[in-house]
């Protein structure tokens, strides 16, 4: 085809031939980028190992779902849609970009035509529109973008700068094509058809009457601007949140597959060799694994995690977003692009405060929300392990930890009293509970755990659970005095050694009892037995048991008596979010004839943590309000006057919150097992 105006490779830019210039630009740009990326990789090479190369097909599938499919994005609808369009536009433009870059270095290069060209023109237009919307959003920003002063300053100017550069890139692209088409039109040559209403088409029509020399300059200028903007962006992205453009692919591919469990102290070091590890946990940035560091780079600073974080919502010093961005800034500062790296600074007392790290209840709302699948719980646990190793444990937690060590439960109650709850006179008449101690055996173990065994109020949940198992004809027993705390929260509060002692003790007791199944009403125990313990029989939560029994007709439920009761089910974090059990408890409630049930706005994987279980009950955080209070208010807002939960810790927190919020008489709390037992025929 006759060229309307000289293509960039052949044109002369201020005495330099285009081809030469752009070879230099490309080489320099790529070299710069490679150097920067190499510098960014340096701390990852010094980090701890993390085996993430297993199960490639599963990982690929998730990559397609979460990265390509942008699965999590629509959870925040407006921003989600913008980003999906943006991402789609970028994906489409990848090939286009390579062609575009080649244009400057080869006299024979051409741009693609036909369907792909049309699609990429629309893509560029959509990206431009997204940029404009995004810039406006940065100015009229949503609350979750805000940066509280103690975390630093907002990077609004930087964000707008980057967004503008992308917009300029798109404009340059459009100008390039538009000016070419306009020049072709003026010279009565075959005009490359541009799709209607695309940016290029608009610009073509705008420039249609501009004199040819000016068009030629615009054409070549647009190309140069595009090149420079492209390489500037490429090299600038690794300095901020935009680095996620490159790292997100890896971040999502290598994301954690096994939910509910916590990483070992050191990958590759088995439990019996842990004594040789000099230091437990994360104390300096190099103690994190390479994947965790990659997470720091990949954060797009969207704030969705902190928006969902219950600790953040009640004014505790924790905000997950800033856990990540502070660590990222720390990496950038201590492993700079120019200059030597200096490492080994302690994180606690530096970028993180002790209270900040102890404030987390490990509810997982942040992890459930993050579009990039960034992990938080493992990092918090690792930081806690580091603090425990250094003896920096808050006094309020030292007492229950000591009690766990000497008595096997955080209350310090005596072992021989663990099964006293089965001896309550009224209960004993209707239900006998076997203690599996060699004299008795059973198929099923009811793992009671500490709070249900020892707390006066929560023992009622234990009795209700036992009655349900009995009525459903289950051959079950409890371990009694030999059962120690599951250790679930001991582990998540960083005391790995104590956890292992509890786990090993319980594992032996469970094996010795000869049971083939385990049932528990405590989601924390459930999660521990399912994910933290090895070599124990399969475990089920009582809600699953009841749902099956109701469906099979082994348990029949009476209709509700009070027509004015409206029930809202609160998803416990360790039943719902961490283990995906949302429907079984709801099926049980819906099987009670006449029961009116409403859903809270924040339900299922958006459930709002009650305040935490296990050791979290003992920790005294600085907060504006209790999480439980917010939750019972949510139940009231949904129109409920009864909040149903399936976790003993949720129960403690809800009943406490009802008192503190002054809602006695307006709201009651009941456990799923207690409700079932009440309605059982």
């Amino acid at each position: 085809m006759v060229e309307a105006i000289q293509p960039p490779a052949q044109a002369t830019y201020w005495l330099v031939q285009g081809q030469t210039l752009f070879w230099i630009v490309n080489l320099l740009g790529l070299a710069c980028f490679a150097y920067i990326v190499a510098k960014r990789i340096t701390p990852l090479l010094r980090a701890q190992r993390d085996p993430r190369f297993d199960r490639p097909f599963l990982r690929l599938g998730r990559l397609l779902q979460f990265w390509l499919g942008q699965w999590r994005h629509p959870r925040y609808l407006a921003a989600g849609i913008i980003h999906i369009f943006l991402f789609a536009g970028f994906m489409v433009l990848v090939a286009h970009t390579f062609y575009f870059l080649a244009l400057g270095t080869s006299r024979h290069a051409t741009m693609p035509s036909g369907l792909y060209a049309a699609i990429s023109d629309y893509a560029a237009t959509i990206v431009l529109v997204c940029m404009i919307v995004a810039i406006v959003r940065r100015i009229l920003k949503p609350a979750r973008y805000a940066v509280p002063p103690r975390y630093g300053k907002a990077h609004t100017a930087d964000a707008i700068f980057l967004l503008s550069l992308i917009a300029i890139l798109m404009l340059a692209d459009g100008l390039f094509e538009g000016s070419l088409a306009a020049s072709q039109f003026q010279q009565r040559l075959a005009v490359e058809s541009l799709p209607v209403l695309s940016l290029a088409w608009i610009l073509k029509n705008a420039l249609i009457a501009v004199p040819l020399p000016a068009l030629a300059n615009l054409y070549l200028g647009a190309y140069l601007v595009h090149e420079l903007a492209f390489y500037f962006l490429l090299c600038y992205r690794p300095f901020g949140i935009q680095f996620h453009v490159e790292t997100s692919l890896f971040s999502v591919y290598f994301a954690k597959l096994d939910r509910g469990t916590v990483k070992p102290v050191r990958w590759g070091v088995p439990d019996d060799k842990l004594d040789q590890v000099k230091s437990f946990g994360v104390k300096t940035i190099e103690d994190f694994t390479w994947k965790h560091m990659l997470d720091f780079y990949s954060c797009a600073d969207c704030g969705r995690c902190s928006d969902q974080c219950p600790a953040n919502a009640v004014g505790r010093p924790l905000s997950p977003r800033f856990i990540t961005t502070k660590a990222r800034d720390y990496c950038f500062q201590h492993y700079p692009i120019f200059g030597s790296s200096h490492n080994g600074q302690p994180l606690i007392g530096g970028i993180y405060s002790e209270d900040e790290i102890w404030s987390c209840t490990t509810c997982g709302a942040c992890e459930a929300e993050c579009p990039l699948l960034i992990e938080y719980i493992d990092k918090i646990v690792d930081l806690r392990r580091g603090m425990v190793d250094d003896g920096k444990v808050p006094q309020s937690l030292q007492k229950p930890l000591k009690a766990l060590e000497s008595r096997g439960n955080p209350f310090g109650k005596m072992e021989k009293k663990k099964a006293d709850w089965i001896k309550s006179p009224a209960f004993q008449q209707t239900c006998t509970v076997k203690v599996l101690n060699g004299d008795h055996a059973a198929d099923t173990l009811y793992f009671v755990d500490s709070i249900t065994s020892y707390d006066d109020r929560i023992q009622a949940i234990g009795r209700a659970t036992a009655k349900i198992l009995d009525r459903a004809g289950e051959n079950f027993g409890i371990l009694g005095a030999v059962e120690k705390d599951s250790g679930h929260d001991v582990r998540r509060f960083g005391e790995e050694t104590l956890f292992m002692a509890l786990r090993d003790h319980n594992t032996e007791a469970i094996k010795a009892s000869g049971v083939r199944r385990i049932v528990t009403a405590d989601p924390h125990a459930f999660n521990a037995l399912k994910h933290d313990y090895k070599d124990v029989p399969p475990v089920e939560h009582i809600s699953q048991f009841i749902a099956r029994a109701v469906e099979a007709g082994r348990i029949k439920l009476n209709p509700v008596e009070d027509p004015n009761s409206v029930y809202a089910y609160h998803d416990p974090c360790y039943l719902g979010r961490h283990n995906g059990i949302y429907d079984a408890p709801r099926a049980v409630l819906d099987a009670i004839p006449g029961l009116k049930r409403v859903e809270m706005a924040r339900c299922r994987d958006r459930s709002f943590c009650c305040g935490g279980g296990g050791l979290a009950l003992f920790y005294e955080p600085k907060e504006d309000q209790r999480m439980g209070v917010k939750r019972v208010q949510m139940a009231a807002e949904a129109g409920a006057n009864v909040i149903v939960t399936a976790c003993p810790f949720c129960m403690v927190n809800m009943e406490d919150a009802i008192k503190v919020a002054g809602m006695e008489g307006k709201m009651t709390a009941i456990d799923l097992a207690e409700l079932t037992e009440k309605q059982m025929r």
Partner: protein
Amino acid sequence: MARIFAYIVHKAGVADDSAAELVAAAKKIDAAQAPTAVVAGWGAELDSVCESLRASYGEVWKIANESLAYPNAELVRQALVNVLPAGCIVLLPHAHFATDLAPGLSIKMNAAYVPDVLGVDAVEGAVLKLVRQEFGGQISAHVRCDISSGAVITIRPGAFKPLEGAPAGGVVVDKSSAVGPLTTGRRYLETVVAETGDVDITKYSVLVSIGRGIQDPDNVSIAQDLADAMGAALSCSRPVVDAKWMEKSRQVGSSGQTVKPKVYLACGISGSFQHLAGIKGSPFMVAINKNPKAPIFRVADVGIVADILEFLPELTNQIREK
């Protein structure tokens, strides 16, 4: 029976209440003997204390020395060692001063030492059979003490009720010259007075007091509501201050404030003697505690076994309605 001396603690010219209790304790050891008071100090304040003691003690030994103007236990100990006869029995009130003074005194006098005695069961020649408590007051113990070379015994405040009786008409004997030179490796600098908080609990006639049973700093408001409804002040025991849930100025006890209310509600307080030591004047005491075996129920007038977190809000409502 050896001679019995009672060491008198005093402040601003007034003898401590324990002075009368020590007489009662001495009489339990030897009913036939009129115990001797020994008082150390300086100046007009010392004289005034000695005068006041003549009513209850047969003899009052005055030890006046300028370096004893402030009661530095290290110096007082030396003075006592020089003044007191070998083989005697010395009684002191079990409190801050005795903790400093008495153990070392027993060594220097080569005497037996029995601290925090609640009762005298029997006297068998040169052996006293005494009653003490251990394990935070949960268990009592009988203790045999060989007094053949003397004894230093500290008495639990409030354990021995002061005796009624005719004035003893005692004489003041000046023993200052027997003191000898006093040197010490511990020099008194000053006393830092605790900051008065917003509320002076010693001025209230009705107190609602909370202990460990309140469980959580957020629950303190439940007790404050009750105090407001009753027109009372809110006070607490030591664990609540140690956990930093309330200010030190609200603590009732031997290391906190001494209060003399008419009515005292002990909520979730176990009843350790250090706490009870801060309550004077036998108020009407109501104890509310989840543990039916809590020691507080031994000393309260009225007891309720209940969870204060449930009981107090209901009580507050009822009071407001009346």
